[in-house]
């Protein structure tokens, strides 16, 4: 009887078709912040020279993100443990603290990569009077994928 042979061959075909794609994405969700200047209603890109950025964790040591390099755009990882993320910016003699409010939920990146945090930025971005003069949220959704996102926020100096 040929039926068992057919059954076996079809089963082997089904087994051979099972694959798991490797993970090509990390689990860190980062805000893309672009630096801007505004003059006479005209917004233009700008580069901040000698920029140093620290992250501030509640009850823990601060950690260095960027160390005295010129940037026109930076990536800021968001804190999944709190409803805000806080960063200190230093340029020469100027210092400011940027607080990004957000809420978050988990989502499945892929079966091979596992889960990540997806954040929604709040509108009440806070900073002192030292460095930033304004902000604009371009895209409030922040997750691990940066492929379709140019910028999340503009920070005006």
């Amino acid at each position, binding site marked *: 009887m040929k039926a068992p042979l057919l059954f076996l061959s079809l089963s082997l*075909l089904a087994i051979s078709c099972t694959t798991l794609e490797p993970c090509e994405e990390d689990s860190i969700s980062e805000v893309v912040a672009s630096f801007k200047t505004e003059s006479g209603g005209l917004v233009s890109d700008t580069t901040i020279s000698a920029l140093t950025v620290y992250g501030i964790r509640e009850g823990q040591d601060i950690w260095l993100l960027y160390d005295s390099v010129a940037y026109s755009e930076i990536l800021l990882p968001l804190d999944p443990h709190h409803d805000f993320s806080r960063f200190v910016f230093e340029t020469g003699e100027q210092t400011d603290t940027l607080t990004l409010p957000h809420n978050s939920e988990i989502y499945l990146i892929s079966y091979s990569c*596992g889960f990540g945090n997806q954040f929604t930025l709040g509108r009440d971005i806070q900073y002192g009077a030292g460095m930033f003069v304004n902000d604009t949220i371009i895209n409030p959704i922040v997750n691990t994928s940066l492929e379709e996102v140019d910028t999340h926020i503009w920070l005006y100096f």
Partner: protein
Amino acid sequence: MIHISGSISKAGLLVLLILTLWRPASGQDTLRTYGPRFGLDLARFAFILADPSELGAEVSVDFEIIRNLYPVIELGYNSIAESEDYFKYAASGFYGRIGLDYNLINLKDRSQHHAFTFGARYGISVFSHSAEDIYIPNPYWGDYVSETYEKDLTGHWIELVAGIKAELVPNLFMGWSLRYKFLLNPGMDPQVQAQMVPGYGNGGKDSGFGISYSIFYKIPLLKK
């Protein structure tokens, strides 16, 4: 929206194809099976051997109501439980399919019951999926451990089916079918993509193939 409109157009083509193939009987006594034919999908047991984390069973019933035209109902259950590096995933639920098969073998000898069929199904699955022990590594803010995620879902899909049934001994059939499936609501859970839609397969794929290999028994309720 694109998925839904595309699926509707595919479903329309499918209906058109069935109506094209279906030619009602012009004779009188033309039915072949004369009773409901119950089936058990044996391929499910082979899949368990290949992947013990996935369990399933499927039964079916068809009945020739018009010459060469067989309404079909298929019912089943699927579950999956897998453990990955950073989470555990589980899904389980029941499904049903309803549709028609058309026998393309136009034998004049009505005692011959072999069939090469082409048909279509509409499938629906009611299931739940969950993840637990979710661990998200984060070198900046510290690793994040989440509570259990769980959601109840409903999946809808359409299948094109081609298959063979051979009568080994009177009323006992074996046969296989090859199925091309396309999911009507692939974004049923935008937060956690369903890794297994019972009766359909991987919810992360808008379309895919399936195989069944079944044994059938026809209950000869009516005599020729």
